[in-house]
């Protein structure tokens, strides 16, 4: 083997873990904690429950998606801490893996707020 390539491969092997780590998952949130405490119970109107079922649930009820899971207060806490304005902006414009409008083509701001509060179990404050 070309000595040059040998050096590169060795560097690759030694650095692979670091490379993978550094590349890391900086676009998606980490997987939710298995022992995450349940968020405060909230109830959605039948209309919003339907929105949740057809849009939010595809990621926020699928742990492998990397999205903060509905009811996982621990995963939502740092998001809620950013404030409603940032969360709503991320919802409207999309953020990392989160698609714009949360894949709901007809929702309004009030509905998005209610859905976030439902999933996070926390009130949204401005």
């Amino acid at each position, binding site marked *: 083997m070309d000595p040059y*390539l040998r050096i*590169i*491969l060795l560097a*690759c092997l030694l650095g*692979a873990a670091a*490379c*993978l780590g*550094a*590349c*890391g*998952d*900086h*676009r*998606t949130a980490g997987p939710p904690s298995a022992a995450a405490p349940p968020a405060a119970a909230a109830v959605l109107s039948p209309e919003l429950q*339907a*929105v949740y079922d*057809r*849009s939010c649930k*595809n990621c926020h009820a*699928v*742990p*492998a*998606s*990397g999205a903060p899971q509905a009811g996982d207060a621990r995963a939502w806490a740092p998001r809620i801490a950013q404030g409603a304005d940032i969360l*709503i902006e991320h919802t*409207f*414009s*999309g953020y*990392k*893996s989160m*698609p*714009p*409008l949360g*894949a*709901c*083509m*007809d929702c*309004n*701001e*009030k509905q998005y707020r209610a859905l976030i509060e439902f999933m996070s179990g926390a009130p949204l404050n*401005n």
Partner: protein
Amino acid sequence: MQFSRRELIGTFGLAGALSAFGGLPGLLRAADRERIVVWRNWSGGQSCIPADRPAPANEEELAALIRSSAGRVIRPVGSGHSFSPLVPTEGTIVSLAKMSGLISHDNANLQAEFWAGTPVSQMGRPLKEIGQALPNMADIDYQTLAGAIATSTHGTGAKYGSYSSQVVGLRLVTAAGEILDCDAHGHPEIFNAARVSLGALGIVSRVRLQNRNAFRLRSKNWVQDTEELLEDMPRLIRENDHFEINSLLHSDVSVATALNETQETKTKPKEGGGDADKVNMLEGVHTRYRNSPRIQATLLNFIARHLVSFPDAVDDSYKVFANVRDVRFNEMEYEVPAEAGPACLREVLKKIRDQNLNSFIPTEFRYVKGDDIPLSMFQGRDTCAISVHQYYDLDYHNFFAQIEPIFWKYDGRPHWGKLHTLNARLLAPLYPKWKDFLAVREALDPGGRFLNAHLRSVFGLRG
């Protein structure tokens, strides 16, 4: 309790109102102000501020909406997964989100009718419960059924057509607010055109599909030299029900995926999660070593062959076809004659490597059976579909601009839901039945209610 701004000032005076409600943010909250919602597609590359975004609950509401909004452009939206500007309008964006689910089925003929707003991701389970399955599916299932057939969305498999080719009937709500049932016997010209319509003929409200009996699939993935795979392509597509390759840019290797029907009953679920980790790794190597192409290629070849796992899976077909794509991107795809596919991909990959183009998401290379639908990208010829992608946060224009002419050289037709730069003058010669479609469109919507600026350019129609 809600107060208008005028009421608050009148009652407390401005200072009092600000104080009582916690300053200006509190006042805005009390006045129940809402921000303007900018509509954006999945990648964020397309946007608009529509006048309204209704979601009718049934066909009567949909027809009434169309009749009552005369003079305003109406564009239907599914899941917003088209990369091309099919949706943006300053008029009305109509969502069929509330018209979703299985309507009826015919076990004798293995057909099923769905509301057009049904996400493809929500079709597999109800179909399995009635013993049916879609014969083929795309590698993502975020699209709605209406969006998928409007753009001739497809999976891979030389013996399988697009979703549109499986449509045996549909209901169309026209610009006049009429509800038309269309199939091979009723309004056959409209039916054939509406199977791939870009949403330009009216709004499809329900779709009847020709399915097959429910089945299971085995997925096998492996990494191999790209040139070896292309050399072996005739055998690979002949011997596998569904076959595709994803070529790692700036490298010598591809990930091959073969899906075949199996009688195995023991389920081996697909690996959980999306593709973010793998794409992040590609991005990391590209970012660090882009200026050292030889090192980059060596690293990518080695990592793909030895450090990344691609486990097999066995499961119900609909669980194996679809993947989670949790890295957003923009995409350009062209459909070239099947026999030209390998040469075209070679040229695309060579261009990316020779020019050291700034992209790291793999190309996708698939096969689709030809059909007889006027505006289908697969009309009249078996096809090879080649896709290039750009991470959503990177500019795609320069990258795609250097690749698109290669597709033209191979007589490619652009995927309707993906980015391209062709207008009517360049598109018309690619479609032998182009005028047939335009005639149907003109008859159904002479006022252009369903045309936005993009579609006017595509069809060569003035506003």
